[in-house]
């Protein structure tokens, strides 16, 4: 009979599809999306994901506040964003439908769990009438599936009680969608085995539910087409799917290996940065020490202490925590010790939107310290780029004996993409170059600088003969002794600024992507990279000329940035803030940068940027 089903069913090849799984926080939608992603990754698609979960731990079941969603974009060519609109929406309950329907393309595919649409469920979601019956879903391709019932049925024989059985319904949904898009099943089955090892009944229940979902698609006369998204022809290599937080943590571990230094992370948990602490705390065999401190100040403080002792000092946080670290960062600037401060930005001000993304900490990173206390800033542009950005931040910190701020954001942190794994041998090694000998015949001068980098020597406690004291009071150039001399202070202030400026000697020039001879240049930084690039490509496809520049180093800027921007009469700067990089380049280069801001806790849709570009092009 499956044969006959086969006959009537056409298989159509599509180049890409955006699927969003949405349900209650309790429904396990993040897991579902994650599994679909892995299966697709293993299958060889290019992909990008956008998880979206509530700030509450677990808001009341069925409420709008409790909805958790996961969007995944899979394709047979390389893609840059999780997609503006979903082609398919899987809604496990009315609340999920209500909060996500806007993001489903007109005419898109809507798969609903009809069992979740009871009277009370509708009320909780604030529906007067049942959307499944009141015609409000006309114009979408709606598939009604009693997933709960079917799941219960599938596990009945096990004699599992309904409540537990229902926990498997996300696997039913996964099975169904996997079938619909011809995903390989093995990865998921293997995953279930390993993930729930020990809990045999859970393994069986989830496996049965998954297979039931798959079989339902196969057998039910509901779907007349199955889709195929062929593997993307990605550059040869070994790939893995990675989130920004994991990539960042691994990048830090890599920096330790590449420099031969032990890592010390002093951190205080905060969304969306906590996972970096969690990940690093697993890798003790790499000589990584993690300390969950009493607060953010102790986080950076302990990292400074570890740095004094010769470790690669790290601290991870998000906006509110970065605000608390300002004074201690100033100390690190004055001590001129290597330190990497990681800020995974989220919606502000204050507690703001803790689980949503934003890029509004750039100017705080630049100026959030008293006095003149400049430091280098690096920003990652994609989940996998977090790996390289982390290494680069550590490299600068160590080579220049300076605190460095590394900026990521909630979208990069939790979003994932396939990452072509680098050869370890190809990664840049760097050397802490600890001082072991006095640097003058008269003895050791802790502030005698390297003429090229202006960096000071780094002598570790325990080294005989190099005993010295450092502190936050102004220091005499060379000796590092406390000095209140007016001219020395002016000199040291400019020296510290000059040292940071010198970092530009060791960073690459910016490259112009697209039309160097365009009249408009789109300037970006951080996680807007994917959306900007996609938007620029689309405009250029219509033959309009557009140039694109994306900066990874926010301070100092690459040496050629001013000259490059100077070429373009029009500069558009899309940012997830009210125009912070825009202010920086205007002040620095007096260029008429126009800001495109979005402060919704969500990444840009490329269409939003596309429109802005076309408007500005006129």
């Amino acid at each position, binding site marked *: 009979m499956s044969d006959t089903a086969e006959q009537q069913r056409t298989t159509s090849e599509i180049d890409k599809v955006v699927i969003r799984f949405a349900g209650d926080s309790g429904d396990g939608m993040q897991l579902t999306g994650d599994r679909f992603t892995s299966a697709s990754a293993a299958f060889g698609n290019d992909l990008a994901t956008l998880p979206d979960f509530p700030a509450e731990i677990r808001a009341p079941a069925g409420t709008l506040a409790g909805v958790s969603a996961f969007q995944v974009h899979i394709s047979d060519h390389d893609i840059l964003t999780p997609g503006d609109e979903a082609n398919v929406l899987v809604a496990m309950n009315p609340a999920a439908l209500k909060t996500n329907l806007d993001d489903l393309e007109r005419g898109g595919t809507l798969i609903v769990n009809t069992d979740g649409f009871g009277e009370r469920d509708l009320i909780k979601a604030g529906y007067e009438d049942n959307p499944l019956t009141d015609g409000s879903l006309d114009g979408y391709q709606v598939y009604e599936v009693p997933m709960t019932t079917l799941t219960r049925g599938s596990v009945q024989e096990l004699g599992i009680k309904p409540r537990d059985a229902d926990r498997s319904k996300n696997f039913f949904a996964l099975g169904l969608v996997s079938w619909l898009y011809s995903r390989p099943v093995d990865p998921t089955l293997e995953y279930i085995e390993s993930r729930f090892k020990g809990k045999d009944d859970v393994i069986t229940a989830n496996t049965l539910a998954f297979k039931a979902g798959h079989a339902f698609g196969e057998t039910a006369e509901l779907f007349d087409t199955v889709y195929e998204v062929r593997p993307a022809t990605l550059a040869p290599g070994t790939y893995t799917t990675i989130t920004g937080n994991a990539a960042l943590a691994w990048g830090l571990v890599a920096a330790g290996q590449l420099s031969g230094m*032990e890592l010390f992370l002093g951190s205080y948990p905060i969304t969306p940065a906590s996972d970096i602490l969690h990940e690093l705390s697993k890798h003790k065999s790499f000589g990584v020490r993690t300390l969950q401190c*009493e607060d953010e100040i*102790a986080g950076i403080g302990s990292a400074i*202490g570890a740095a004094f002792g010769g470790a690669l000092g790290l601290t991870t946080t998000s906006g509110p925590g970065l605000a608390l670290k300002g*004074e201690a960062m100033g100390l690190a600037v004055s001590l001129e010790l290597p330190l990497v401060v990681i800020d995974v930005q989220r919606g502000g001000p204050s507690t703001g939107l803790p689980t949503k993304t934003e890029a509004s900490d750039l100017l705080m990173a630049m100026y959030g310290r008293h006095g003149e206390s400049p430091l280098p800033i690096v920003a990652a542009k994609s989940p996998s780029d977090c790996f390289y950005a982390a290494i680069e931040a550590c490299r600068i910190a160590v080579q220049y004996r300076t605190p460095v701020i590394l900026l990521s954001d909630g979208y990069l942190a939790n979003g994932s993409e396939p990452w072509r794994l680098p050869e*370890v041998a190809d990664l840049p090694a760097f050397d802490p170059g600890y001082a072991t000998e006095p640097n003058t015949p008269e003895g050791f001068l802790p502030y005698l600088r390297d003429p090229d980098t202006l960096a000071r020597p780094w002598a570790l406690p325990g080294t005989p003969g*190099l005993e*010295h004291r450092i*502190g936050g*009071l102004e220091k005499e150039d060379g000796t590092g002794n406390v000095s209140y001399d007016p001219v020395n202070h002016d000199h040291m202030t400019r020296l510290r600024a000059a040292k940071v400026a010198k970092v530009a000697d060791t960073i690459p020039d910016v490259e112009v992507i697209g039309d160097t001879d365009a009249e408009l240049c789109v300037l970006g930084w951080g996680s807007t990279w994917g959306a900007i690039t996609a938007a620029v490509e689309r405009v250029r496809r219509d033959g309009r000329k557009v140039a694109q520049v994306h900066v990874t180093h926010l301070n100092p800027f690459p040496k050629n940035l001013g000259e490059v921007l100077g070429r373009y009469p029009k500069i558009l700067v899309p940012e997830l803030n009210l125009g912070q990089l825009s202010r920086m380049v205007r002040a620095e280069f007096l260029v008429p940068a126009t800001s495109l801001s979005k402060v919704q806790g969500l990444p840009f849709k490329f269409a939003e940027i596309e429109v802005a570009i076309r408007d500005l092009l006129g």
Partner: protein
Amino acid sequence: MSTTETPLDIPITKRKDWQTDQEVRWCPGCGDYSILAALQMALPDMGVRKENQVFVSGIGCAARFPYYMETYGMHSIHGRAPAIATGLAVTRPDLDVWVVSGDGDALSIGGNHLIHVLRRNVNLTILLFNNQIYGLTKGQYSPTSEVGKVTKSTPFGSIDTPFNPVSLALGAEATFVARTHDMDRKHMQEMMMRAHQHKGASLVEIYQNCNVFNDGAFAQVTAKENRESMLIPLRHGEPVVFGENGERGVALDTQGRPTLVNVAEAGEDAILIHDESRPDPGLAFLLSRLATGPTMPTPIGVFRAVERPTYGEQMNAQLDAATAQRGPGDLRALIHSGVTWTVTGSDNGRD
């Protein structure tokens, strides 16, 4: 690790070897001078290497200390020394990390870091210079100032009940707590030595006279003529007695109420026997409450000294265990640890 060395390997030092070329900049007559001298004279007997000593301080008069020690040192920011020292101590167990702090630095802005290093038992020797005033900022009251204190910021008298640093430390799970004062070099040195020997976080409260902004704050108990009658020396395993000939002592009633008694009247066996090593901090706490301020008979010496694994030891043990189990970290293995797949020129497969 200096600790495992035989004294022989360690160069003999003299007081001057611990002095820097920097001019000591405290007010003439400040108690800080005698504390500095006491430590610089005691260090040669501690059998430690200069290069392995690190002094970390916050901000304050007391916090200038590191500049005067010919060792490694950091004069950091106000209140944060315990946190900074924690990062150093746990990553460098081979070092002896000292924290020098004032009553404002340690108990006002730095109070939270202090209680957390104590509960974690980070291997630090903390010297708290308590002068019951903010010296460096020219005389505001501090968290240890007595109620009613008239200062620049309290012209009508302060209304804050002060902390008792010893009680606070005991309430924060400290493993070593002692008290001494700047008028008795021998006792200071003994406490410094004990604190340094203690594995874990050791807190030594040092009554220190600020002769400019709070002169004589401790005179009632530390002045030569008052010591015998006003200081209660705590000695492990011995009865808690004081006075010229130990004629006065401390006894507990059935409800655990500590009282000062006349030994003759109360009888020898009524006298409390000090036990610094008692697992629970109860006894030490009772003793810390004998005096609510340095104006009544006040215990000095070691209140509590118990063994507990240090934070650094345990952290490093976890690293060693992990390495022993999995072998040293392999970066390639790490980045390949997730689900991976390989794209070859032609078709795709998974590894």
